[in-house]
């Protein structure tokens, strides 16, 4: 059957960018600057979608104050080790390039009319932090920014460059032909229109993954957060479609560990003063101050719990009036809704404490994602990953850099690539699988299945892992896949998007558990009760996962090392 008969619409483009955030918009704008025809697919509305939807209050790490990119890489390695235990959990070459191109990225953002300067027209470098803090932020290396409107500004810039934006459009799966990615299928989440997008290059920019665990904050969803770890966004769509197409993912055994706010009465007050240099004061429930950073590590928090000292609360009462005003401005820049949350609940940061999150995984923010080379190429031809989609890469500065870099380089690939040849049978198969939930009556709501997946991960994976629990978790997920996935129902195209998200979440949750099973050791925040020691054989080794001939493959391979040309800096 001809493609036009299978799909409601066929879009032909040079570059398909999946995700319109801090990485996707720069990639799309830069590629369009080179004269390429670019299509950006965004499942929500680009002006306020995703992690940066409500804004961002600080940006980047720059090689300044006498620090070189290489020294920053060393700091990054130190920070990785603090979180994950000794080992190399990312790609130092990516980090080197990010630091080395910090000021280029800054200039590119300013060219897109993104405000990088403070109200007085100068850059405002965040204050030093006190000794003993994370060394990557102990210097004036990052910028405070007024980015409340960064998303509408980016969307405007992308439109101005002539990028074709398909909003309210959810990618179903990637299209492949002979090991090359040649486009994607998608559905419009308002009309249900089934779309085929033929592309010479595909860039994945959908952010990270988190929704197999309970979210960072149990705040009521009526507040409609568009925040870094917002449950409304981070379903790992880019990771999942990459995996199903045959690309490699890495580090799915390593989750981010929250020492964040576990409080339904307020939201992240604590992060903002840390950014402005003054850490909060943590207390146990009896009012005894707890030494920093005891409560920040899994083992530290577990120790406090065993001694009966939890819950742990943070206080900001020691801050000066000037700092409380800084927090207010940060609220405007990153989450204006914070004021409403606090006002609704009667929360006063000058006099009230808030509870810290029990230390447990709540996302994969630190190092997991799609494995790429130094140019953000994934393991399939024609496929790139940028921003939080990339294994070992995370934050808005890294997102913007990777977006600009890939957007700047795609014209070479596109000029060499032939016309994408799409396999109609693959399209038909993807369409059939994607649209099934629209025909199901009295089935399972997407959120019902998502909550069941979260329950399985919270109960059987979470902080203290063991082989028996992990196997049971896998069994539970298998049961959900067998019994409930086919019964997913979507009463309209919006719910079809939710159903597609849940399919992605389930795929990634299984990969997560399999990676945890394979890692038979305890290191950093990866705690295996049945393997309490470090396994030296896993030093600097990463878990890579991919689909090969329809079968899952998990390989433990050496992590990338810093290339000699970067390591010799300054010689």
């Amino acid at each position, binding site marked *: 059957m001809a493609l036009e008969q299978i799909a409601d619409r066929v879009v032909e483009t040079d570059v398909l960018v999946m995700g319109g955030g801090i990485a996707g918009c720069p990639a799309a704008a830069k590629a369009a600057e080179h004269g390429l025809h670019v299509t950006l697919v965004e499942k929500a509305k680009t002006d306020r979608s995703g992690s940066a939807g409500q804004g961002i209050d600080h940006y980047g790490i720059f090689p300044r104050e006498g620090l070189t990119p290489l020294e920053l890489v060393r700091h990054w390695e130190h920070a990785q080790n603090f979180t994950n235990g000794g080992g190399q959990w990312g790609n130092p070459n990516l980090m080197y390039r990010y630091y080395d191109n910090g000021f280029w990225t800054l200039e590119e953002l300013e060219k897109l009319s993104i405000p990088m300067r403070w109200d007085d027209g100068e850059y405002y470098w965040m204050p030093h932090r006190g000794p*003993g803090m994370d060394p990557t932020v102990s210097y004036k290396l990052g910028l405070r920014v007024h980015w409340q409107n960064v998303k509408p500004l980016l969307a405007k810039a992308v439109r101005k460059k002539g990028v074709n934006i398909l909003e309210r459009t959810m990618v179903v799966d990637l299209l492949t032909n002979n090991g090359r990615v040649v486009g994607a299928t998608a559905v419009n989440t308002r009309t249900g229109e089934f779309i085929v997008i033929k592309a010479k290059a595909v860039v994945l920019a959908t952010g990270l993954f988190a929704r197999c665990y309970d979210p960072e904050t149990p705040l009521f969803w009526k507040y409609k957060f568009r925040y870094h770890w917002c449950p409304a966004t981070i379903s790992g769509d880019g990771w999942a479609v990459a995996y199903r197409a045959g690309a490699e993912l890495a580090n799915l055994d390593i989750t981010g560990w929250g020492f964040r706010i576990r409080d339904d009465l307020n939201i992240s007050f604590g992060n903002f003063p840390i950014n402005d240099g003054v*850490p909060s004061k943590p207390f146990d429930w009896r009012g005894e101050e707890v030494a920093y950073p005891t409560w920040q590590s899994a083992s530290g928090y577990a120790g406090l719990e065993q001694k009966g000292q939890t819950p742990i609360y943070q206080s900001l009462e020691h801050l000066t009036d000037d700092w409380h005003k800084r927090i207010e401005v940060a609220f405007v820049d990153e989450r204006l809704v914070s004021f409403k949350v606090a006002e609704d609940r*009667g929360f006063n940061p000058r006099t009230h*404490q808030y509870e810290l999150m029990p230390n447990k995984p709540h996302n994969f923010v630190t190092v997991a994602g799609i494995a790429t080379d130094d140019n953000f190429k994934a393991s399939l031809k024609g496929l790139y990953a940028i921003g939080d989609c990339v294994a070992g890469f995370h934050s808005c500065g890294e997102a913007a850099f990777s977006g600009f870099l890939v957007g700047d380089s795609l014209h070479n690939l596109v000029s060499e690539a032939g016309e994408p040849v799409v396999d109609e049978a693959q399209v038909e198969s993807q369409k059939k699988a994607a649209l099934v939930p629209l025909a199901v009556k009295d089935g399972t709501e997407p959120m019902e299945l998502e909550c069941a997946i979260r329950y399985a991960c919270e109960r059987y994976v979470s902080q203290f892992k063991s082989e028996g629990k992990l196997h049971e978790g896998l069994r539970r997920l298998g049961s959900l896949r067998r019994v409930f996935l086919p019964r997913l129902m979507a009463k309209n195209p919006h719910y079809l998007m939710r159903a597609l998200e849940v399919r992605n979440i389930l795929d990634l949750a299984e990969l997560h558990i399999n990676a945890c099973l394979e890692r038979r050791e305890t290191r950093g925040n990866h705690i295996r009760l049945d393997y309490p020691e470090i396994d030296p054989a896993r030093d600097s080794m990463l878990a890579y996962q991919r689909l090969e001939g329809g079968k899952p493959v998990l390989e433990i391979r050496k992590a990338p090392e810093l290339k000699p040309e970067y390591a010799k800096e300054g010689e």
Partner: protein
Amino acid sequence: MAGSMSGSNYEEKFEFPLWKLIKQRAEEKDISYVAASEEVVPEYVKTIRYRDTEFEDAVIQKRAREMAELVEREQTGKKS
């Protein structure tokens, strides 16, 4: 020490000074909170000592000293 989050004073009404200004401006001009904040914040920022590095460093160092003392107290087993 600040009051517990579960304390009775928790539900008392508190209004952030900046939020109050934003709401007032939005109401006066019948504009969104986002638009109002764009007008209000540049003025509010002028009341904050962002460029006073001496002041910033003093505040940060004071907190750093407190934290170091706490660690020392814990290590020596002394109570505050």
